[in-house]
C-alpha cells in the first residue's frame, strides 16, 4: 500500500444512537418482541439533498458500528478504515456511509447485555433470539429515521454479506445495489458445526452460569477458546504456514503444556484480547442468527431472489474455505436464474476468509467503479 496522507483519511468520529419511541414494540420473526430498541451507529460523509447517495455497510460477527475513523484516545481505527474514506472504495467525498451495530450485538445496540427496562438488569438469555432478517428490519428503522427512501447500496462481508442479501429480499424497492462479500445464502452443516463448537466452549465455562454473569466473573476462558476456533477458520493453511510455520517461542521444546509454538501464542493473545471487548452471550446470539440464516427455506432455489430488482456485485476469495467461492457462485446462479444484473469476481488471495478485511486494494478496484457507475445510472 502506498503512503497515505493523514489529511485524506477519516479522523475523529463518535458513535451515535437511535432510540425507538418509548413504548414501541419491536416484533421479531419468531413472534417474540422487546421494547426500547436502541441502535448504535456511525456515519461518514454527507447525505445529499436528494438523499440518494446513502450506502449501508454491515459488519461481520465480531464487528460493530465503528467501521472507520478513530475514537478518542484510540490508536487503531475502525474495522474497515482501509475501505471507507475520501477517495476510497466507499468514497466519503461522494457517499453518505452508515454502519450500525446489529441487534443481538454488544456494542451499543439492543442485545443480551442491554438493560431490560422492565427489570433494570441486563437481559442475559431472556433477550429473544434474533435472525438476520430481524437485524435488517432494525436497520430499516434507522435508515427511515434519516428520511432515506432508497439506499444506493448495502454492502458487507461474511455475516455482513448475509444482511446485504437479506436487504434485497426484505426491501426490494429500497436497495439499488447489493455488494455481498465472502458470504453464502445459507449456512452449511460445516459452518453450523464450527459455530456449535464455539458455543459449547462458552457454555461449558462454569462462569457462564446460564448467561447470568453480569456483575460477576465473565466466561472469559470459554469465549477465548471460541475466538481461537474462529481465527483458525478465518486463515488458510498457506497463510498460517507463512505466518507461523513450526516456529517456537523459545529455542527448544519444553515438554509441557504451556504455549510453545508461535501459532499457539498468537491464538492465546487474540483470545485474551477479544474477551476484553466482546460479550459471551452476544457471541451465542450472533452465531445462532448466522446458523438460522437460510434464504432457500420453504422455496425452490430458483425463487430465492424472486422479485429482487437490485444490481449485484458478488465477491469471493480463492483461499476462503469457510465461505467457499462455490457458495458465492451459487448466489450468482440464483441471481442469473431471475434475470438479475450481476457481476462476480473471485479475488486471488492466500489469506483465507480474513481476505475481505485484507485484500482491500482489489476490493477497492471493484467497488469504487461499481458504485460510481451505479450513481451515474441514477442521475440519468
Amino acid at each position, binding site marked *: 500500500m502506498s503512503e497515505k496522507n493523514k489529511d485524506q483519511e477519516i479522523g475523529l468520529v463518535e458513535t451515535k444512537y437511535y432510540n425507538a419511541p418509548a413504548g414501541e414494540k419491536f416484533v421479531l420473526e419468531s413472534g417474540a418482541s422487546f421494547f426500547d430498541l436502541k441502535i448504535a451507529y456511525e456515519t461518514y460523509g454527507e447525505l445529499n439533498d436528494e438523499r440518494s447517495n446513502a450506502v449501508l455497510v454491515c459488519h461481520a460477527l465480531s464487528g460493530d458500528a465503528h467501521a472507520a475513523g478513530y475514537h478518542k484516545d484510540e490508536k487503531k481505527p475502525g474495522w474497515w478504515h482501509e475501505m471507507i474514506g475520501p477517495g476510497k472504495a466507499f468514497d466519503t467525498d461522494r457517499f453518505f456511509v452508515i454502519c450500525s451495530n446489529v441487534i443481538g450485538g454488544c456494542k451499543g445496540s439492543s442485545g443480551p447485555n442491554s438493560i431490560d427496562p422492565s427489570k433494570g438488569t441486563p437481559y442475559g438469555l431472556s433477550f429473544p433470539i434474533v435472525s438476520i432478517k430481524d437485524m435488517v428490519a432494525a436497520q430499516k428503522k434507522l435508515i427511515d429515521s434519516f428520511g432515506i427512501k432508497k439506499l444506493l447500496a448495502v454492502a458487507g462481508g461474511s455475516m455482513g454479506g448475509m444482511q446485504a442479501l437479506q436487504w434485497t429480499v426484505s426491501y426490494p424497492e429500497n436497495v439499488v445495489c447489493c455488494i455481498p462479500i465472502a458470504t453464502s445464502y445459507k449456512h452449511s452443516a460445516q459452518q453450523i458445526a464450527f459455530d456449535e463448537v464455539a458455543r459449547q466452549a462458552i457454555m461449558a465455562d462454569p462462569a457462564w452460569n446460564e448467561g447470568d454473569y453480569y456483575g460477576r466473573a465473565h466466561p472469559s476462558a470459554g469465549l477465548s477458546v471460541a475466538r481461537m476456533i474462529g481465527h483458525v477458520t478465518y486463515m488458510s493453511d498457506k497463510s498460517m504456514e507463512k505466518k507461523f510455520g513450526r516456529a517456537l517461542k523459545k529455542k527448544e521444546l519444553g515438554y509441557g503444556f504451556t504455549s510453545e509454538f508461535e501459532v499457539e501464542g498468537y491464538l492465546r493473545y487474540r483470545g485474551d484480547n477479544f474477551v476484553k471487548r466482546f460479550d459471551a452471550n452476544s457471541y451465542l446470539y450472533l452465531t445462532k442468527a448466522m446458523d438460522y440464516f437460510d434464504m432457500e427455506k420453504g422455496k425452490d432455489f430458483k425463487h430465492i431472489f424472486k422479485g429482487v430488482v437490485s444490481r449485484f456485485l458478488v465477491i469471493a476469495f480463492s483461499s476462503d474455505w469457510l465461505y467457499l467461492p462455490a457458495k458465492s457462485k451459487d448466489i*450468482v*446462479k440464483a441471481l442469473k436464474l431471475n*434475470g438479475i*444484473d450481476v*457481476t*462476480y469476481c*473471485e479475488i486471488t488471495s492466500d489469506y483465507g476468509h480474513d481476505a475481505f478485511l485484507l485484500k482491500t486494494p482489489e476490493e477497492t*478496484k471493484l467497488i469504487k*467503479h461499481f458504485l460510481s457507475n451505479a450513481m451515474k445510472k441514477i442521475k440519468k
Partner: protein
Amino acid sequence: MVSRLKEELRLDHAVIGEMINAGSKVLDVGCGDGDLLEYLVINKETLASGVEISEDAIYSCVEKGLSVSHGDIDSGLKEYPDETFDYVIFNQTMQQVHRPKEAINEALRIGKRVIIGFPNFCHIKARFQIFFGGHVPVTSSLPYSWHDTPNLHFLSIKDFRRFCREQKITIEKSVFLSSNRIVKFLPNNFALNAIFQISKK
C-alpha cells in the same frame, strides 16, 4: 461512462456491431477487457453481460461499468435460463473452449442468436506454410507457436459450414475478413477471420 472509442476501430467489432439490433440483450463469452461490450453499449445501446476467466480482465470490465461474471466458459453458460439473451457472442474465444460443440449448443439454448468469430486455419498463407514450409502455420490471425498457444481447436470456414449442416444449425449471416477489409472472393482461401451469425431456427 466515459466514451472510450478507439481511434482505430477494430474491424471485427464493427462487423459484429452491424449484425446486432439496437437495444438488444447481449452476452459476450470470453469478453476480455470488455472492449467489444463497451463498443456495443456505446453504439448500439445493448444491455451487456460478459463471462471472462482472467481476474485482471474483470477489473477492466468493471471499470467500464460492465456486468461480468468471473468464470470459465465451459460451465458458465449453464447458469442462464433458455433464451435469456438476444445474442450470445463468441469472438475469438471458441477455439479456446474445451468442448466447442457443447458450448455452441448451450449458447443456442440461452441466446436467440449466436455470433461466432474465429480465425480461419485454411487461409492460403497457412496452406503454404504446411505444404511448402512443412510446419504448423503462424499467421496474423493465428499468431502463436505450437508450444505456447491458448488455442485448443483449429478449424476452417468450410469446417464450420459442415458443422452447422450436421448440427442442423441455420447460418443467418456470414462476413469474412482480412486484416483490414471484408473478403468476398474464395473466403476459405483468403479470409484470415470469419464471423457467422447462427440460430436454431
